[in-house]
């Protein structure tokens, strides 16, 4: 049987984002998630207040 080719192992992610306050990509992703949570909270509040 032909064995499937495996994906090459991914090199460690370069942590330098070039951003002044967020040096690692994990930090950038966390800020994006927090921004999303903030927006959902605002939308829930808007729905509850005016429905």
């Amino acid at each position: 049987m032909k064995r499937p080719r495996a994906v090459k192992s991914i090199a460690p992610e370069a942590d330098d984002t070039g951003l002044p306050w967020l040096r690692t990509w994990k930090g950038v992703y966390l800020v994006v998630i927090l921004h999303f949570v903030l927006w959902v909270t605002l939308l829930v509040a808007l729905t509850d207040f005016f429905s």
Partner: protein
Amino acid sequence: MSALDFVILIGSMLGIAIYGIWRTRGRRELNTYLKGDSKTAWFAIGLSVMATQASAITFLSTPGQGYLGGLGFVQIYFGLPIALIIIAAVFLPIFRRLNVYTAYEFLGWRFDTKTRLLGAVLFLLQRGLGAGLTIYAPSIVLATVFGWPLNLTIISSGLVVIIYTVMGGSSAVTLTQKYQLAVIFAGMVTAFCLVVMKLPAGLTFTDTFALAGGFQKINAVNFSTNIHERYTFWSGLVGGTFLMLAYFGTDQSQVQRYLSGASLREGRLGLMFNAVCKIPMQFCILLLGVLIFVFYLFEQPPLFFNATLSQYFAEHRSDQQLHAYEMDFNSIHTQANRQLEDWLKARHGGDRSAATAAFAAALSAHKQGEKIREEAAKALSAVNSRTTATDADYVFITFILQQLPHGVIGLLVAAFFAAALSSKAAELNALGSCTTVDFYRQIIKRDATDTHCVAVSKWFTAFWGLVAISFALYAHLVENLIQAVNILGSIFYGVMLGLFVVAFFIRRVGGTAVFWSALVSQTLVFVLYFTLTISYLWYPLIGCAACVILSIVLQTFLNGAGEKSEMRET
């Protein structure tokens, strides 16, 4: 439209198109034509990704969706930030390291040629049909603005987009999208400000939201666990994640955009830009539709927003019958209007019981008005079932033409065309490049030179443009354009995502197992779509899960069969 509108429309559109073609003239290298010059900065990538997704449908149909259904549609984007983080962290580094032209090349590298072609076929089918819907949207604008036959506007606007895309290639698409997006944002912000200014003088910010909320338009988040409800927090978060992961991670029209980045960093930041901006942007566009709804509670709306429906009604039923429906509708609307004015007075006077009673009466009158609309629509469909399409897509353009000043009309029509050109060009460019790289150079002519491939890619781009025009001629049958695009994507994207999930994360599965599992899963999704009534947002999850699970099971079976066979040989 006045002369001023035409000057703004033609000046902005021609200016951007000529600039893009001039800056990218004479490019003959396949790499540059298909992927751009790989020098694009994160902000341009971010705008390009945004402009590719935000077609004319987004700006034409989404306010209509807000007008009819309120803010609930925003939940479809709840999965987008999560999906873009996964793509930035996992998909993008691998695509860049392999230096692929198309996402499906990766499937060929990881599995085999047949799986690569299957991925490409699923993309071509889905995007080829979806491209028809995105051509249809600007055609509605043209037909409404100029009163031309819809089929003529579909063909003419489709041909303009084909010429523009064929001449420019990927570089021109990325280069011009930021200017097109500037026109779009200028148009939408102007429209938003003018709608707010046109609301009745005594109506405060909280009055407006309270009014919209009373008519169930401020329903932004719904935590219902009923899977038959189309837009809920859960369907948006879970189903939406899979839908967006599939769209941004496996649809060549998007992959091509972020692969044009100068580095991994630029691509990632471009995606994160979208992860942050998309939900607020869609919220504002839906809110625009809700504000137009509130505006039309105080101003007389037409019986049909699509003027051609009224014309058709008058021609095929009778003028008197149409007039009778219009009289009833207008009379009910006047009643509702008076009740709302009473509600406003009682609310400002602090009389809560009077306010509640007046609002209940206004709500009841509004519902009667909607019933009259439904009866008129039924009478229309009795004459010709093809005219039953709702006119939600015409709400915003009707508002623009009837309520906004000259100059602004030209700017907004230019915004629709900018949106159509930017997304359509990216789609056709991706369809052409996928057909060239994954089929032509893979199967027909393996030793083709770059110059030859660029020429072939242009022909394929034109071919897909013509397919899109043909499909657009039937797009009037869909309920609402923005929903139709997402439904179409939901049917195909799940399995396509399943192929990539297996490729990235399940190393022991090979090409044969994933190929047959994908075919079975796609058939399963088709069957379920036509038999179940669950929200379409769940199908990407179902398709992906089916493909992954079947792949693992089939690979286990194949491994067992392989081992037995090897044992017999020894």
